[in-house]
């Protein structure tokens, strides 16, 4: 039974969490001459997780969802922000101070084939957490506890499974064993990192069913990390959509799916392959790919790919470089060569700056470049990029382009969800 206090305090309260991986020590980085920088895997994330809830963290690779899960379990070190478990601050505790908390939160990994120690049989592997925390007196008690856990996850008769090694089990069975190991300490919070994405379709349902059953029987709270919106829709009460280390939209599952607000959410939903033969391949997908997390785009990190971006979204020099690339990819070779010669060293515009300097090619002037830019604009005036350009002036051998001021949107309320997007001017910031 929960006390009133427990009902009010969220089980997990994350504020402004950041996890940056510094590149400084990387030998490889130094070898290729890259500056010291850091991968901003998690870049300011805040949310609350209430008892008994299932919160989905949905995103593609590079979104930071896995790192976020690992940071909460202190498998990666937070570089800033706070994590409160039932009101107690745990983000910056020392490892030994944190160790008792580990009993209350566990993790299930993505690859069932790599999550079990190949050198341990199931009895030892599933029982090891109990041994580590000194919770069993003797072998007999261990067998009882492990047997109970294996029974719960459907690996029965348990006697047969005690001696099995991971290589004797199928993918689904391995994932069940991993779940058994995760629940045996009696945790309150279970972080599930893509628990079914490496399993066959017909096995996924079994494991998800099992997870739901465990949730009810053991009063668990889940943080469900996935890239698969379909399973998230089925499994989660609330969903947070992540992009490049930030939450861009968060709200109740039903609202997110019924009325997705952030353009990224919209495109994710449209791109889900659906076994409905009347659907065709979606065409208007966001262009490009998830950008580099070392130097994320200025302003809103989604703006280079967003079909609905406009002036405030934070335009920069690199967007101009992308513009050229897109244009030239679709051109015939001869035309490409001709236009390419007009512009000089492209490296000068590959910078994260709010003003661009476009050099002219050999034998060309700034005027030529300006003309090219005007041609490009005329060809497709609806391109969002142009709404961010304030002014273009030719100066001798280059063109100066200035952009409108951009701003990084923070999460703000829009209906019963929160969105980080300038299209939604909520009443207050979250």
């Amino acid at each position: 039974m929960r006390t009133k206090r427990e009902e009010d305090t969220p089980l997990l309260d994350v504020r402004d969490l950041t996890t940056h991986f510094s590149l400084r020590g990387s030998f490889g980085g130094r070898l290729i001459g890259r500056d010291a920088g850091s991968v901003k895997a998690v870049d300011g994330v805040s949310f609350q997780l209430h008892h008994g809830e299932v919160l989905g963290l949905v995103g593609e690779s590079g979104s930071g969802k896995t790192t976020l899960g690992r940071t909460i379990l202190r498998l990666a070190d937070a570089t800033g922000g706070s994590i409160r478990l039932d009101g107690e601050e745990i983000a910056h505790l020392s490892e030994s101070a944190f160790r008792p908390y580990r009993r209350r939160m566990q993790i299930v990994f993505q690859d069932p084939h790599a999550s079990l120690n190949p050198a341990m049989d199931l009895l030892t592997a599933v029982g090891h957490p109990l041994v580590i925390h000194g919770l069993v007196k003797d072998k007999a008690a261990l067998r009882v506890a492990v047997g109970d856990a294996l029974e719960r996850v459907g690996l029965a008769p348990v006697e047969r499974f005690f001696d099995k090694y991971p290589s004797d089990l199928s993918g689904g069975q391995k994932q069940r064993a991993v779940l058994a190991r995760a629940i045996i300490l009696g945790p309150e919070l279970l972080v599930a990192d893509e628990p079914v994405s490496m399993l066959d379709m017909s096995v996924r349902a079994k494991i998800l069913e099992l997870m739901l059953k465990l949730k009810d029987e053991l009063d668990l709270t889940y943080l469900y990390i996935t890239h698969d919106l379909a399973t998230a829709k089925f499994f989660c009460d609330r969903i947070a959509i992540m992009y490049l280390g930030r939450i861009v939209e968060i709200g109740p599952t039903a609202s997110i799916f019924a009325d997705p607000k952030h353009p990224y959410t919209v495109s994710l939903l449209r791109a889900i392959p659906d076994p409905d033969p009347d659907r065709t391949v979606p065409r208007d997908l966001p262009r490009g790919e998830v950008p580099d997390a070392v130097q994320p785009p200025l302003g809103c990190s989604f703006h280079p790919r967003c079909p609905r971006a406009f002036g405030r979204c934070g335009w920069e020099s690199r967007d101009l470089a992308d513009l050229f690339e897109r244009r030239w990819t679709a051109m015939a070779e001869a035309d490409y060569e001709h236009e390419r010669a007009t512009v000089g060293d492209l490296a000068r515009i590959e910078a994260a700056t709010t003003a661009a300097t476009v050099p002219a090619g050999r034998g060309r002037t700034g005027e030529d470049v300006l003309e090219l830019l005007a041609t490009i604009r005329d060809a497709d005036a609806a391109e969002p990029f142009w709404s961010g350009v304030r002014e273009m002036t030719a100066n001798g051998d280059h063109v100066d382009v200035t952009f409108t001021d951009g701003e990084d949107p923070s999460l703000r309320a829009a209906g019963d969800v929160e969105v980080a997007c300038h299209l939604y001017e909520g009443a207050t910031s979250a």
Partner: protein
Amino acid sequence: MASQLETPPVPSSPQELDDLAPMQRRRLGALRRMWAPMHDAKGMPKAIVWVGIGITVAFILMAIFATQIAPYAFDQYKTAEGVRFIKQQAPSAQHLFGTNVMSTDVLSRVIFGSRTAIEVVLLSLFVSMGIGLPLGLISGYHGGKLDRTLLVFMDAMLAFPSLLFAIVIAFLLSKTFGHGVVTAALAISIVYVPQYFRVVRNHVISIREESYVEAARAMGARPWTIMRRYVLQNVIQNVPIIATLNAADAILTLAALGFLGYGIQPTEAAEWGYDIQRAISDAGAGIWWTGLFPGLAIVLLVTGLTLVGEGLNDVLNPVIRKRPIEPVELPPREGAEAEPEPGDEDQT
């Protein structure tokens, strides 16, 4: 997925294993799991291992029972009655391998030499693994400055020609420990520490990011527990192979040390390398038995150890292990277009 095509480790009949008591079952199961690849190996790799094992065991037995087997003591140059042996006598009934320039029996020296060799090698294996393994484990698992420092250090040691290195160490140690088995063993062991360090460290690095190691951290296991039960147990398979190959190399290094005069003093123990060095001058005089037999002994033991090591590698290393492939017999087809085969062909 892949498990469909892999050999099930053990056992061949689950029923008989089920009959055993649980503890026995598990211990037996683990042993049989390790031994299983040997069962599967057929032909060359298996033969190689057995031949190598045979030779090595023969030498080990020789070493253990040296006092019983050898006709004389290793430094005995006269009979019990005090009659001095004839020096440089050709092989004869009393001296099956002849005598050398010091009037000692070659056969006995070869036999006692094997004791020396085995002692030195075992001791040096023990020491170098005892230093190299834990260092590699800790260095690989923790990374960071410690790892970088140790790596530079170990790489520097590896860059040194091993024989020269051994000579230097032997020379330095001889001041404290004299010129016996201990000095030689320590000198050799230091030379091989970097090898164990590297092999273990690299393997540790490759598995340290695996999910099951992270899961161990998530459980709350302490670093030493993780290193011991999650990392070391999975890394240890390569070590016996490296150990046998190092042992072979160690024999050669010991002999070389003895040959060059930096090894074991003749008064301390019999040593093949030293004997060969003394036999150089005999060769010109047509005295072949003083050099041949110690030399043969070296060659045989080194070959035996190498065969064991390489053979084990072929058998155990999953990357190059060749599974025994039964030639597949496809039963003939029935007619043409999309017709199913008869449902009951026999299994191969």
